[in-house]
């Protein structure tokens, strides 16, 4: 294992300390329980929006704390759900009297830990609503699985719901908008290489040099198929096909297209993949109304990418365009 670390058990805390120093104008970091919070929290009269999950997916979620996006983020150990103490403390810290929305990715541990925190916060008189993202089309959504995993849509939802909260929407309205983004969004990812969890010390899975995993999860969970390495054109088809079929996205639709890097893939390849996605969508009569290209929901140093599409309407477009100022996303202010 080759990593820029001191000791595996200190990785999360030391990274948090670095974030706190680097972005002291935007965020504050609270330790034990650990959470990252907007420097001006709680914003009175505004719905608080918080999220959280295992570390190792940076910049998600801590990099999205700031004006127009998240009020707080709760980082767990690498790839391990945070505990309810963190979400409860973060909920209190961002509660401005209009309630708090919890944005949860659909993993068994995350869902249960957020649920417990929501119950505890409700017992203290803070109104909490939750939205669970489950956009990964690689997983069958049936009674026989824990349901689809929450992946790329989470980033876009945090931006859009955060903008609605910033504009003064009430809790029910912020939740409605968040649910709309999740309902209209689909994702699929792929890996060229594995990732190494610091405390594990060895790669999560083995992938031969000439193979790739299609439908990979953001913790290195297995995908749909393992197959021989193919061209970018073919890989783009393998990712976009299942996404387009699933919603389905149709000719005449306008979408927010998100090409995401898994952590170890350079931007030049992501733009190359964006070019492929653009070509595919154009061929289907689908317009890219807005786009995001870069590594925003990662899996440590895994090489690979994911596509996320969200069907846009005027409301979502306006909220996407609204000003945002966080460590990882900034425009309009």
């Amino acid at each position, binding site marked *: 294992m080759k990593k820029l670390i001191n000791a595996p058990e200190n990785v999360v805390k030391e990274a948090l300390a670095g974030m706190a120093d680097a972005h002291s104008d935007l965020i504050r970091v609270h330790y034990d329980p650990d959470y990252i919070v907007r420097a001006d929290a709680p914003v009175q009269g505004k719905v608080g929006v918080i999220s959280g999950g295992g570390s190792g997916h940076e910049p998600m979620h801590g990099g999205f704390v700031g004006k127009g996006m998240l009020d707080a983020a709760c980082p767990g150990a690498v790839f*391990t759900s945070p*505990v*309810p103490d963190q979400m409860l403390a973060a909920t209190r810290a961002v509660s401005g009297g209009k309630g708090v929305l919890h944005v949860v990715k659909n993993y*068994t*541990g995350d869902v*249960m830990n957020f649920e417990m925190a929501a119950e505890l916060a409700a017992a203290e008189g803070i109104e909490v609503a939750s939205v669970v993202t489950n956009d990964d089309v690689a*997983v069958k959504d049936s009674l*026989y*699985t824990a349901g689809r995993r929450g992946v790329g849509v989470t980033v876009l939802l945090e931006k859009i719901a955060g903008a609605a909260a910033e504009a003064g929407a009430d809790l029910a309205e912020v939740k409605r908008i968040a649910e709309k983004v999740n309902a209209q969004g689909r994702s699929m990812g792929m890996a060229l290489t594995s990732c190494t969890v610091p405390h594990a010390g060895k790669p999560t899975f083995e992938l031969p040099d000439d193979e790739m995993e299609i439908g990979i999860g953001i913790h290195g969970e*297995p995908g749909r198929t393992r197959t021989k390495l193919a061209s970018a054109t073919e890989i783009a088809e393998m990712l976009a096909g299942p996404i387009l079929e699933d919603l389905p996205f149709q000719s005449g639709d306008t979408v927010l297209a998100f090409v995401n890097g898994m952590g170890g893939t350079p931007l030049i390849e992501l733009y190359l993949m964006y070019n492929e996605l653009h070509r595919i969508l154009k061929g289907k009569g689908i317009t890219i109304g807005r786009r995001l290209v870069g590594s925003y929901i990662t899996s440590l140093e895994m090489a690979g990418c994911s596509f996320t599409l969200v069907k846009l309407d005027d409301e979502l477009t306006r909220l996407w365009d609204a000003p945002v100022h966080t460590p990882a996303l900034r425009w309009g202010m």
Partner: protein
Amino acid sequence: MQIQAEHVIKFVELVAARVKEQRDFLTQLDSAIGDADHGVNLDRGFTTVLSKLPSVADKDIGSILKTIGTTLVSTVGGASGPLYGTAFLRAGMATADRFELGPDDLVAALEAALEGIQTRGKSTRGEKTMIDAIAPAVDALKAARASGDDLVTAMRKAVAACEEGVKATIPMLATKGRASYLGERSIGHQDPGATSSLLMARAMLEIVEGIS
């Protein structure tokens, strides 16, 4: 036979010691069908529980169990933290203000714990989870008590049923938790959560045997 607060403390100390011994085994089971952290997470949780025990040693059994529950929830993470944490919290609610428990109080506390796990996990039998170990054990315990067995005999039957339950998870297809993403590939592996539940059942039997 009466179970006292000191027995509850001894039980948890024994569980903590066994979790430490079995940590790598539990993690190894989890690496096959989960995310390879079950033993590590439980060990971290029960080690913290041990440090909290002195401060509640003179309290009622309900308070002791609730402290264990909240500590597990706060330190374990993943899915097993909320599940075992809820189990201890519910058992604590069923034994609030009690300094002594009779056999049937113990059965009621275990039933409350099982119900808590099922509610928190939105899960039932046959989904390759800890419920497949705990539910048969609670059933066997109740049946044995109903037929007039003393607590030690009933607990032995419960542990035997728990062992069968753990074995039965091997050919099961996982439909809950991270193992469910594997679909058919989850078949043939013993469930780590069921395995740690058996460890706790065995520790409980040892304590009960020690009282009589």
